[in-house]
């Protein structure tokens, strides 16, 4: 019983930092779904692209050049954000915008095609192998002895939590108070009305995609620096899990995405302690199916009634 508590504590730390990454990606899904009512299947690949641009930046600057590690991290984040936002904007502009009025299936298939395209784009350009990311963030924030068992939080995990919490707060404030944030909320409530009231709907949608890409890029760079390994397929899995988190929290709700991310991270981490490695991925899929069957509106969402 004594070893259980520190074990749980450690899982809590691990789970929350994993959940933070899911939350960052999930916000992108939830905002896009809230405004244009479609799942941006390519969003997971946007996250993956962020990770790759981060690694490219670090490699380009070079770890042996004498620059302090924090500089490389900041540079990686900055460049990754810029490039990934460009990709996010471009995907919306070319694969989704012209399909906005079409029957449901059409933009969905376009999104899937985009996802496949982007994933293989990176496979061809950057090889399909695992690539190691230099360990720029080393050490632990703390490492304490709890009843004979060591509970620690690595600096990379701490950074993830810190950055994520800061960004969540910024996004929440922005959506609550800034003009564009209000416009986003208006569009997610009633997009046609928002348009009639003079809101530039195209701009709002583009902004949503860019914001989602921004957060996903941060997540991608940080996960690379934390796990020190990336490959072109991380987007696929992370995308599904982040979407699950968004649904869990209530699709269309930004606080929901944060809550869902945290919960999914915790559930998955606890599950991985008891299940063989690959099976832990099933946890997310299983959770998704269960939520959609029992409570599709999620934890913080409102049940939708269809208008007849």
């Amino acid at each position, binding site marked *: 019983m004594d070893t259980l508590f520190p074990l749980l504590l450690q899982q809590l730390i691990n789970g929350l930092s994993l959940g933070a990454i899911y939350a960052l990606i999930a916000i992108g899904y939830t905002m896009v779904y809230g405004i244009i009512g479609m799942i941006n299947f390519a969003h997971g690949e946007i996250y993956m692209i962020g990770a790759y641009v981060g690694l490219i930046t670090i490699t380009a600057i070079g770890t042996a050049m004498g620059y302090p590690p924090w500089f490389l991290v900041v540079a990686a984040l900055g460049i990754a954000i810029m490039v990934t936002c460009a990709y996010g904007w471009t995907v919306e502009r070319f694969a989704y915008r012209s399909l906005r009025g079409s029957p449901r299936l059409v933009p969905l298939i376009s999104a899937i095609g985009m996802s496949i395209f982007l994933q293989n784009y990176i496979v061809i350009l950057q090889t399909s192998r695992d690539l190691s990311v230099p360990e720029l963030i080393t050490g632990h924030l703390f490492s304490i002895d709890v009843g004979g068992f060591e509970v620690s939080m690595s600096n990379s995990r701490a950074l993830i939590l810190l950055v994520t919490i800061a960004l969540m707060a910024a996004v929440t404030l922005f959506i609550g108070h800034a003009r564009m944030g209000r416009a986003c909320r208006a569009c997610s409530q009633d997009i046609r009305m928002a348009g009639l009231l003079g809101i530039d709907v195209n701009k709002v949608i583009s902004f949503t995609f860019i914001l989602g890409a921004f957060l996903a890029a941060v997540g991608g760079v940080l996960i690379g620096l934390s796990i020190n390994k990336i490959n072109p397929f991380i987007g696929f899995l992370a995308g599904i899990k982040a979407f699950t988190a968004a649904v869990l929290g209530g699709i269309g709700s930004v606080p929901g995405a944060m809550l869902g991310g945290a919960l999914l991270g915790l559930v998955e981490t606890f599950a991985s302690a008891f299940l063989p490695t690959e099976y832990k991925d099933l946890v997310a899929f299983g959770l998704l199916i269960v939520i959609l069957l029992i409570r599709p509106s999620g934890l913080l969402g*409102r049940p939708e*009634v*269809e208008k*007849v």
Partner: protein
Amino acid sequence: MSGNVAETAEKNVTDKQAKPVLSIRQLQMRFGGLVAVDNITFDVIEKEIYAIIGPNGAGKTTVFNCISGFYKPTSGGIMFGGADIAGRASHEIARCGIVRTFQNIRLFRNMTVVENLLVAQHAQLKTGLLHGLLNTRAYRKSEREALERAAFWLDRVRLREVANREAGNLSYGQQRRLEIARCMITQPKLLMLDEPAAGLNPQETVELDQLIRDLRDTCNVSVLLIEHDMSLVMEISDRILVMEYGQPIAEGTPEQVRHDPNVIRAYLGGE
């Protein structure tokens, strides 16, 4: 006031000494905090044309949606065919014998008129997958009979000439008639029409009037209708329920309702 309406409703039924086809008791529908419909109680008896009228937003279509199973009522009873169907799935209720039309006509626009009528018979076509795959005699007979029934109803609503046209290419009046034919081909016991006269010119409205009465007389079907066109309602209804803000405010024959002070106030407003 609402209690009186309910009492009047029950009194009207027992007066007529006829069996109710549909009995609504204390129907309530809430959406979160908003009470859309409350305290609705009425009966529709055999071969009766019963209308629900009221200003916009009164909750008439909500009542329809509750009865036809598209909404799950928050509380109340809907008795039909000896059972309480409140909360049942819409397709199950349709199977029991209640069909409805929609405010914005819902036809299968890319299918032909005939095909619309064939789809409507889907629940009645008894031959299974195997018969169809092997094109057995029983299957061919079933298809032939379905086409004959479709032809019968097309003649009935005078759409025979456009039988092979895509439903989306019909005129508005023709689409309305097709929608009604589509409902009737399912052999319903209760036909619910949601603003059937909307968008029709006076000539078409008269024809609709005739059609509804004709159906009631010959097909042993009761009609429940929502309408804004007062002339149509007063002309063909046996009884009328008046709603306002989700509540019943009057019920009775057209004569009674026409002179009810609450109804006059609701429609003309003010003191």
